[in-house]
């Protein structure tokens, strides 16, 4: 990180951030990570922006309907044309 000294276990902590934002990190590692975050502004930014990244993809991920032409060809291929809504 920019102008930022990390301890030796930082790589392990970086690898744990994804589980952390999912709330799936084990208690011990979670406590260790939160101790680190309390004193490391840069890592807090990484966690916050990682959480926001995941959030943005989740909220924009509504499936769009299959374009009608494609759906028509699919039902034809499956010999289900009479049942297409």
């Amino acid at each position, binding site marked *: *990180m*920019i102008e*930022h000294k990390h301890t030796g276990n930082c*790589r392990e902590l*970086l*690898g744990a*951030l*994804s*589980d952390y934002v999912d709330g799936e990190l084990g208690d011990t590692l979670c406590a260790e990570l939160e101790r680190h975050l309390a004193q490391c502004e*840069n890592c807090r*930014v*990484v966690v*916050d*922006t*990682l959480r*926001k*990244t*995941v959030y*943005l*993809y*989740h*909220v*924009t*991920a509504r*499936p*769009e*309907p*299959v374009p009608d032409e*494609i*759906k028509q*060809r*699919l*039902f034809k*291929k*499956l*010999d*289900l044309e009479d*049942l*297409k*809504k």
Partner: protein
Amino acid sequence: MVETVEDFTLEALRAGDRAEFSRLVEAYSANIYRLALRMLNQPQDAEDVLQETFLKAFRHLKNFDGRSKLSTWLFRIATNEALMLLRRRRPGQVSLDEPVMGDEGDQEPLQIVDWCCLPEKEMMSQEARKHLDAAIDQLPHSLRVVFLLRDIEDLSTLETAEVLGLSETAVKTRLSRARMRLRELLSAYFGERLLVMRDGGG
């Protein structure tokens, strides 16, 4: 007792009931098409995968054992079809189980910009969405497919592991790498937007 999975009657599906199969196609075609499109970036190939997935599903439903969800099973067929197309396009370069060293490895975060304070409408704009999509396209296939299944199609870690034939640990590691890379790419974009807004230009 009638065996149902995700609101579908397995007995009818296994017996080749067209109406029930049609309901299955209606329910999952949008997700399958989106996954194929995001994996392949090519509408014609994505359409081929969509058709092939449901053709294979119809043929093999009588052997569906009901141990996984129908959606997981369909995603597995679709993913295999899409990977096969990718391998055909670039022989020897697309593999899920043999990651290329340096291609998937962890990298330290370089972008330290707190763009979380940007207004929601800025982050959800059409332009921002294009960047969200473009960032996914920059992921190597082995990370991209895991991210698409977990964070876009909302499968669990276990379901994703089943679809791809990977361990749950491998899924978590790849998801973490995918998300960290996306964070880097989005930070570069939104960091710029933040500067523009602070300068009063946005």
